[in-house]
């Protein structure tokens, strides 16, 4: 190709010129410095340094160890919370299938959009650091727990061998399963297996709330599982220690009453409780009775109600008993002004319907049976019991077909189990949300020989006492069925559908039971747990009663309109909630206001409780009263973000924080934020002192909160002392207050 001459000249010139530059010998070090210096100076006028500065600033905000949240398609899944017995409906916001937040569902018939703080962190539990992903053997060395991986079959063999030993000998030793959440399908499976094997015993604690309804059971002679409360209808609720605002029953129901009624003065809460608790703070009125005198206060109310003719017919002998509890006398015992007793009784009668609740302090346990009787008795006096009243009967939820017409172990209360009798204990450890002191269980075990297996997915709480753990799937990892909460108005049923896949080596408790059955030659249903749940759902569908709430569209469908079992199951799978019809045709009769206890015994018991033991007071001048919030006082894990309420704010007191009136503090020369020692008959506990002038002088409230290992896990697992370790646990399974001594360390 020929180029025009002028062009080729230019090119050749350029080449020469370029060569000249390259060949130039005068290009020395000074020139390089000049070039670099000039270049740098010139750079300032280009965008390069500024871009670089921006990049540096971006770099300083993106350190590699700061996690980057994964992105993906966002959708909603519906299910049921299984953290406690309330069974709240939840909506999970999922990113690429992974739940990133959980929410209550607005207008949900059960929890009405509400979820407790623990529920909001439910999706964290699968990643909890204390999670166990395979069976382990625990060795307790001086309260420090070490774990080694164990083989599930070995554990089953040990159990089967022990069962065989018990069966062959004439031993009274018991094989027991402890279930804090009776009524689930797995509960039936436990009962089935335990009925099959010799000396099998199905044990419950009542910590799901039913332990506070014992008194109700006493006066009516009815099973508490067939009654619920009509909270939504109540204008006044008198709560005898029921922690309505700390997560009682289905929390959303109480909150719903607050939400709807507070500004219209439609809802009034009177809290009868020695401590200025959370509920007492929210309540319209706080009645700070002397600890242990709640029942006397109830009798005082009854006295006024009867005397002022607010009650139509009352048994004469009950009248006689109540007559002794004049407002003045009650005032002397409870420390409440006479007028307040009278006013409270009047407002109950006039600002009705009024519901009287007797509750269980989540950490402090239930009232004793004798204390409960007069409290529940008030409901009878006010005519509160019966269909469409305050305490309503409800249908039981049918069991699955496999568990109908077959022998099931009877339900035994833990307190009724003979001491030192349990040889094999299987702890289900689905948490009820309320505390159970280990002493209560420990005293039932055969000393040194007992074999304890926990099915907990986590190495926390009570599980640390076990010899072996066969971890179960956790919250939202497998199908679980949700029987009604103890307070539910009608029977309900729902299924918590899984959102996660469980790790390989975890075992569904039903499968574990089946393996034991196989080894011991017992008869057990063959279906998987999901099959058994589905079977039960089928039974409910067959009843053709009630409605199903569908959270995906908020629609309520009559069960009768759901034609197929499959459709019903599908609805439950989508977070649907079956709600039974109210029971309208059963009349409830009150058998005796004294329950099975009898007038004289009740009176003497109550007098015992309310009479100060002066001899004991010399040695133990203060009263130790545990307290805590539901869901954190039990022994399961909690979301690490619960630290926002415990550690990162002063809002809730963490474990072993002692609330003491400043006067009491100065009496015992305690100092704020310093450790102090509490001494009881049961032992010693070091607590941290917090002065609080809303506390009754002479009382020490010690918090039972989540331990660090339950929040974020710990490197070294230890069994730690808490307030329950030094509380006196009586034969009836209560430990509400303990005489104690406090001193500086």
């Amino acid at each position, binding site marked *: 190709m020929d180029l025009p001459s002028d062009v080729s000249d230019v090119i050749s010139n350029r080449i020469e010129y370029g060569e000249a530059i390259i060949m130039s010998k005068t290009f020395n070090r000074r020139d390089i410095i000049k070039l670099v210096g000039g270049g740098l100076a010139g750079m300032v006028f280009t965008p390069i340094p500024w871009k670089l*500065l921006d990049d*540096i*600033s971006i770099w*300083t905000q993106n350190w590699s160890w700061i996690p980057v949240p994964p992105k993906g398609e966002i959708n909603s899944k519906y299910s049921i919370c299984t953290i406690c017995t309330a069974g709240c409906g939840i909506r999970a916001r999922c990113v690429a299938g992974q739940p990133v937040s959980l929410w209550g569902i607005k207008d949900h018939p059960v929890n009405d959009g509400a979820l407790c703080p623990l529920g909001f962190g439910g999706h964290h539990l699968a990643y909890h650091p204390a999670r166990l992903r395979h069976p382990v053997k625990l060795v307790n060395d001086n309260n420090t727990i070490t774990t080694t991986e164990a083989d599930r079959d070995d554990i089953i063999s040990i159990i089967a061998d022990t069962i065989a030993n018990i069966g062959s000998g004439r031993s009274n030793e018991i094989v027991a399963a402890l279930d804090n959440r009776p009524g689930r399908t797995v509960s039936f499976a436990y009962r089935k297996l335990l009925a099959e094997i010799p000396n099998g015993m199905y044990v419950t604690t009542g910590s799901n709330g039913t332990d506070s309804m014992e008194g109700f059971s006493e006066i009516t002679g009815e099973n508490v599982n067939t009654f619920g409360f009509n909270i939504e209808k109540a204008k006044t609720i008198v709560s005898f220690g029921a922690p309505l605002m700390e997560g009682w029953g289905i929390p959303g129901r109480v909150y719903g009453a607050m939400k709807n009624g507070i500004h219209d003065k439609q809802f009034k809460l009177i809290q009868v409780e020695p401590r200025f608790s959370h509920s007492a703070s929210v309540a319209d009125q706080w009645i700070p009775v002397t600890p242990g005198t709640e029942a006397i206060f109830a009798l005082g109310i009854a006295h006024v109600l009867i005397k002022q003719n607010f009650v139509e017919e009352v048994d004469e002998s009950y009248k006689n008993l109540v007559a002794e509890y004049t407002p003045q006398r009650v005032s002397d015992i409870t420390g409440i002004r006479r007028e307040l007793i009278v006013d409270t009784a009047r407002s109950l009668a006039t600002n009705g319907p009024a519901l009287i609740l007797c509750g269980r302090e989540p950490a402090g346990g239930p009232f004793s049976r004798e204390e409960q009787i007069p409290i529940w008795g008030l409901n009878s006096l006010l005519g509160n019991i019966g269909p469409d009243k305050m305490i309503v009967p409800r249908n039981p939820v049918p069991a699955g077909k496999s568990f109908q017409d077959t022998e099931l172990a009877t339900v035994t209360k833990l307190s009724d189990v003979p001491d030192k009798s349990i040889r094999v204990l299987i702890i289900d450890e689905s948490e009820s949300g309320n505390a159970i002191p280990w002493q209560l269980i420990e005293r039932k075990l055969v000393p040194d020989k007992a074999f304890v297996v926990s099915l907990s997915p986590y190495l926390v709480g009570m599980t640390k006492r076990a010899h072996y753990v066969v971890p179960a799937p956790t919250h939202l990892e497998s199908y679980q069925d949700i029987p009604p909460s103890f307070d539910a108005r009608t029977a309900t049923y729902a299924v918590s559908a899984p959102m996660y896949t469980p790790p390989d080596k975890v075992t569904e408790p039903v499968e574990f039971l089946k393996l034991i059955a196989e080894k011991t030659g017992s008869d057990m249903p063959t279906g998987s747990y999901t099959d058994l749940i589905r079977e039960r759902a089928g039974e409910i569908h067959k009843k053709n009663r009630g409605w199903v709430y569908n959270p995906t569209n908020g629609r309520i469908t009559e069960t009768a309109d759901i034609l197929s079992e499959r459709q019903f199951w599908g609805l439950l799978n989508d977070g649907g909630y079956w709600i039974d019809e109210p029971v309208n045709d059963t009349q409830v009769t009150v058998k005796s206001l004294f329950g099975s206890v009898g007038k004289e015994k009740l009176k003497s018991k109550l007098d015992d409780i309310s009479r100060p033991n002066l001899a004991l007071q010399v040695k133990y001048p203060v009263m130790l009263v545990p307290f805590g919030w539901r869901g954190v006082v039990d022994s399961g894990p909690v979301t690490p973000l619960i630290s926002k309420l415990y550690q990162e704010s002063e809002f809730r007191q963490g474990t072993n924080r002692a609330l003491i009136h400043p006067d009491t503090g100065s009496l015992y020369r305690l100092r704020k934020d310093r450790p102090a020692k509490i001494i009881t008959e049961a032992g010693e506990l070091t607590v941290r002192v917090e002065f609080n002038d809303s506390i009754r002088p002479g009382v020490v409230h010690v918090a039972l909160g989540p331990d660090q290992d339950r929040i974020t896990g710990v490197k070294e697992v230890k069994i730690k002392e808490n307030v329950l370790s030094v509380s006196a646990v009586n034969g009836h399974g209560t430990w509400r207050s303990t005489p104690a001594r406090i001193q500086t360390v």
Partner: protein
Amino acid sequence: MDKQLQVRGTTRMEFRKFITYLIPWFIVLGIGLYAMYLVFRYGLNHTNMDNRFAFGLWIYFDLAIIALGAGAFFTGLLLYVFKREEFKSVINSAVIIGFICYSGAIAALVVDVGQPLRAWFTLYRPNAHSMLAEVTFCLTLYLAVLAVEYVPIVLKNRKLKQIPSFLVFEFKLHKFMPILAGIGALLSFFHQGSLGGMFGVLNGQPFSFRETVLVFPSTFFLFILSAIAAGPSFIMLTTWLVSKISGKKLVTKNVFMSLGKISGILLLVYVLFKSIDSLYWLNKTSPAVGFTVADHYGYAPFGIWILLLEVIVLGLIPALILINKKFREKMHWLLTGAFLACAGIALNRFVTTIQTLSLPTLPFADFLTYSPTWEEVAIFLMVIAYGVIVYSFSFRYLPLFPQERELNSK
């Protein structure tokens, strides 16, 4: 060799002795550096500061040493701009003290912030409304000016000045000192003021909020006044201290007296304005937003006594001592006055930072207390050790006090 580095005609302690004397300071410095490492590596959780007590020992320390370091610019201003030649005898020492105070303060600040790597953002995209941006700009520039002022002193080291070009550079730079002193004074006025303004503008904190005078809150001017009042006193105290430690006479007494007089007059003016400001604030500014004397001085241990101590015992009294010629002529009175003045300003900075944060503003918040961790104390001491070391080396090898040779002859 060591002797060859020292100023001709001065005698300094033996090298071995000098090093022995410095060893404890180096140990303190080392511990401080370790604490610094901990803070940089693991974060500010190694301090006892918290979300409410967001400022602690370090910020207090910064405010205090920056106020006391004001002697540098103020002496420079008096010497180079107002031609008060008597201050020539302390200017070098004043510059070094200023440099130490400011560089130390900046070192403490760098540890104090959460992301020191981003500290330059302030210069890059500043918020003109922020007093802290102003402080950052002024501090950065003024530290540069101080460094430029320090350079000639370093170049006057006996060995360095044997290099003729260094001497020439020093000589020429020295000619520009009035400009640098002027700029330094301007910057100093602004950042001293801004440090006060930092707290005076906080309308969310009625304890420190003050009315505005000419765009700036009154604390802006009070901080300038108090700094220039305390600065000369601090120069006097340090010079006296160095003189005591070295066993040398360093400046003539009339310099001390001049410093004292200036301090005294300014302190009196400061006390007057501070009193007016306090009264106006307690009776007008603060009640207007519902905060009374009890809200500010009702929490033990910060009673009204702290205000009286600051204004009267550590303000009015030293001012009167320093203003009175009879007292001034007696060295111990002069030093007492200077010490009280410096203590007063230190207390003022303490009240401004710590008491502000201690007092609750939110009606349901608590009165809080704060005590520093060992890391905070170590870094605080580290800065002091750094100052002692830098000053000791400077005193040993650089001509700080031109009068020294003359005054130490018999």
